């Protein structure tokens, strides 16, 4: 229903009030736009309509026309009659049409919902005290709205398997399943990995994997989020924490350049799970399973927790001053990172420029799955381009660094998180020069660095990333960092202030953005950090179209888009 590139709107009468809605959407969405919730289980905006839960029943009528002549049928007052459908219709399967009348609050609708709820609850176990979904369970919510409060069902409830392992990460409690088929549709439509289906009939219907298959794709945990009840549970999160204790903070997944929007659920500074956050231009409502376990790195054993100078633990300030002392009058090389935030890359670039340091950058690449795991396994490669730290596409080797050291063009090194021993640099060369390592985790480079300054993970700091389609997305601190550690921005700013004359670099995000958005030629021109919308901001990346970006076509991303743009 899109014409002239603009979505057209039509008027419908919702609960007796004329409202404007986009043409072509269904009644659940239309009511939702105007603040009326039509309860539903099986309908999901990003999946096909199945219409099997019957919870979204509404009353619907259209203006009457004579079938033979096509003329409007008028009542005695000369107003067009409304032909009400005698029985309620499902809101998810009915699209709006001009002049349509919809009742979402009539007694028939309420009775229908109460009837449906009673049937859904007939065999539903009284598991709420131990059910992980409790607190974010649609069945629980609508049971309080439309439930009877007691059961008229005197027979014994159906017994079904309580802990079927559908796959390595998903456990199914069949008794709780209300047969909405969202998980089945998700696997078919989004992942194209058709493994789930219903077997048996009537109240014996059971969700299972097809024989010989299991739900093991990298998106299997999305079925847990999709499940409106507690039937599909995450084996990792199962029985760990009740959801009402969790603080949800919006963040960005750092797994790959797809930049999935996520919610970080934490309690008292400990992350318990990561779930996708809906963003219709990036990741819809999905994310990878492999991205969900990244929170475990926050408290992993290899985490760097205290600064050290030549192997001895020291305070952060001592380490910073030792580092700046080391860099004095040296030909500095800076190894940046595609995992740093835009702001960090900007400061690092500033430091390099002021000290006339040589800049190096390494990419990390893997296989593209065509959905939300892109071949570029860093969240912010494009940030380096936008901030000017690099102007060419990085390779996954740093062979030029070796050459620079051998040619004595570089005799001191600042490394941001990168493991140099993996990137083809000769270890003997590295050991000959002083190295300062900034990073969150222990690696071979940190082991032989002269100064190690621990920094924070993306969950513990704020900043922004630029994803594969040049979309600028901000993330906010979700949990406090380990005791005594400061954000990378602070460390880099202190280095700038110590090493550059007359430098008064602030580590405050707002003031960094002020400096960063000054340049007119920069895509970030005129932006303010706090004004970056929750669903991100599309930047113009056409400037870099000639670079050999590695990502393939995937969800909400096509590599050609940029090329097309440049042609226009």
């Amino acid at each position, binding site marked *: 229903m899109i014409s002239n590139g603009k979505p057209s709107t039509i008027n419908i009468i919702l609960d007796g009030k004329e409202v404007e809605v986009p043409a072509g959407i269904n009644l659940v969405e239309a009511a939702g736009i105007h603040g009326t919730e039509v309860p539903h289980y099986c309908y999901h905006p990003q999946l096909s309509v199945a219409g099997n839960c019957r919870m979204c029943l509404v009353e619907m009528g259209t203006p009457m026309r004579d079938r033979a002549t096509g003329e409007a049928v008028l009542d005695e007052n000369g107003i067009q009659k409304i032909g009400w459908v005698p029985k309620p219709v499902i809101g998810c399967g009915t699209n709006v049409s001009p002049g349509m009348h919809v009742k979402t609050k009539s007694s028939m609708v309420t009775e229908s919902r109460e009837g449906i709820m009673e049937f859904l609850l007939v065999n539903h176990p009284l598991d*709420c*005290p*131990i059910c992980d979904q*409790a607190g974010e369970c649609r069945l629980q919510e609508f049971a309080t709205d439309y439930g009877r409060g007691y059961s008229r069902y005197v*027979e*014994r*409830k*159906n*017994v079904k398997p*309580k*802990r079927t392992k559908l796959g390595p990460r998903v456990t199914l409690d069949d008794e709780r399943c209300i047969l909405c088929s969202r998980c089945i549709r998700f696997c078919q439509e989004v992942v194209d990995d058709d493994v789930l289906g219903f077997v048996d009939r009537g109240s014996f219907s059971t969700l299972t994997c097809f024989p010989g298959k299991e739900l093991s794709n990298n998106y299997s945990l999305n079925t847990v989020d999709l499940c409106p009840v507690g039937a599909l549970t995450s084996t990792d999160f*199962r*029985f*760990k*924490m*009740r959801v*009402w*204790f969790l603080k949800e903070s919006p963040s960005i997944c750092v797994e790959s350049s797809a930049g999935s929007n996520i919610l970080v659920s934490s309690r008292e500074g400990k992350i318990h799970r990561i779930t996708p956050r809906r963003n219709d231009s990036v990741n819809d409502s999905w994310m990878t399973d492999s991205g969900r376990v990244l929170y475990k790195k926050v408290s992993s054993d290899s985490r760097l927790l205290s600064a050290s100078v030549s192997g001895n633990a020291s305070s952060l300030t001592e380490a910073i001053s030792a580092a700046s002392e080391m860099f004095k009058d040296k030909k500095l090389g800076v190894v940046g990172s595609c995992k740093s935030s835009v702001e960090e890359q900007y400061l690092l670039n500033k430091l390099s420029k002021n000290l006339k340091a040589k800049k190096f950058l390494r990419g990390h690449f893997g296989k593209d799955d065509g959905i939300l795991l892109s071949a570029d396994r860093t969240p912010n490669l494009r940030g380096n381009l936008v901030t000017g730290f690099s102007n060419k596409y990085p390779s996954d080797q740093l062979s030029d660094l070796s050459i620079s050291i051998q040619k004595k063009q570089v005799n001191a090194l600042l490394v941001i998180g990168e493991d140099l021993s993996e990137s083809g640099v000769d270890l003997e060369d590295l050991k000959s020069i002083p190295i300062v390592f900034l990073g969150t985790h222990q690696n071979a480079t940190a082991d032989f660095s002269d100064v190690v300054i621990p920094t924070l993970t993306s969950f513990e700091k704020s900043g922004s990333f630029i994803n594969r389609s040049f979309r600028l997305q901000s993330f906010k601190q979700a949990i406090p960092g380990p005791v005594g550690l400061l954000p990378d921005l602070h460390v880099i700013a202190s280095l700038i202030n110590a090493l550059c004359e007359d430098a008064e670099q602030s580590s405050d995000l707002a003031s960094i953005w002020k400096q960063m958005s000054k340049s007119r030629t920069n895509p970030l021109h005129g932006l303010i950090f706090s004004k970056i919308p929750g669903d991100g901001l599309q930047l113009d990346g056409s400037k870099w179209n000639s670079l050999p970006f590695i990502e393939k076509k995937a969800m909400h991303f096509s590599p050609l888009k940029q090329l097309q743009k440049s042609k226009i």
Partner: protein
Amino acid sequence: MAKTVVLQRKPLSLSERTYLPQIVTGLKTTFSNMFKGKVTLQYPEEKPNIPKNYRGIPTLVKDPNGREKCVSCQLCEFVCPPKAIRITPGAVPESEDDREHVEKAPQEFEINMLRCIYCGYCQEVCPEEAIYLQDEYSLSGYSRDEMINKKEKLYELGGTLPDQHYKWDKKKNAEDEGNDH
């Protein structure tokens, strides 16, 4: 049609203004109280009668089969106004035949008695009737650590509740026998 009437206070007489007669009345009252006998208890030797609905130390109880009732739903932790309760939930391992169907049980259950205000919300909210404020009211310890009641202590204080629900027994039966259609 409420009407506001300003009442004039009766002017005090001279003797009233010296307050002396009132003081004498007060002295009479306190003096007569001296002979009224004590209303207090000699505490450690004499103990008060604890009413049935008394809210003493919160404890965890076991069902008549001697199994723990708590399923670590953490509702008490949520409802606790001073945040005295801390539960670490855990799954019941499948090796435990007689209660693996309960699925969830607390790994650790701590009630910080330095924080507890004996409001009884935890007892009221518990869906499994596993936590009770019992008649014990006197507790003391030498360290803060001692004042945090751990799971073992809570069950020791709580004992067994002889109720007749047998919820989990029924559940187990249904699981073993299936249902008849």
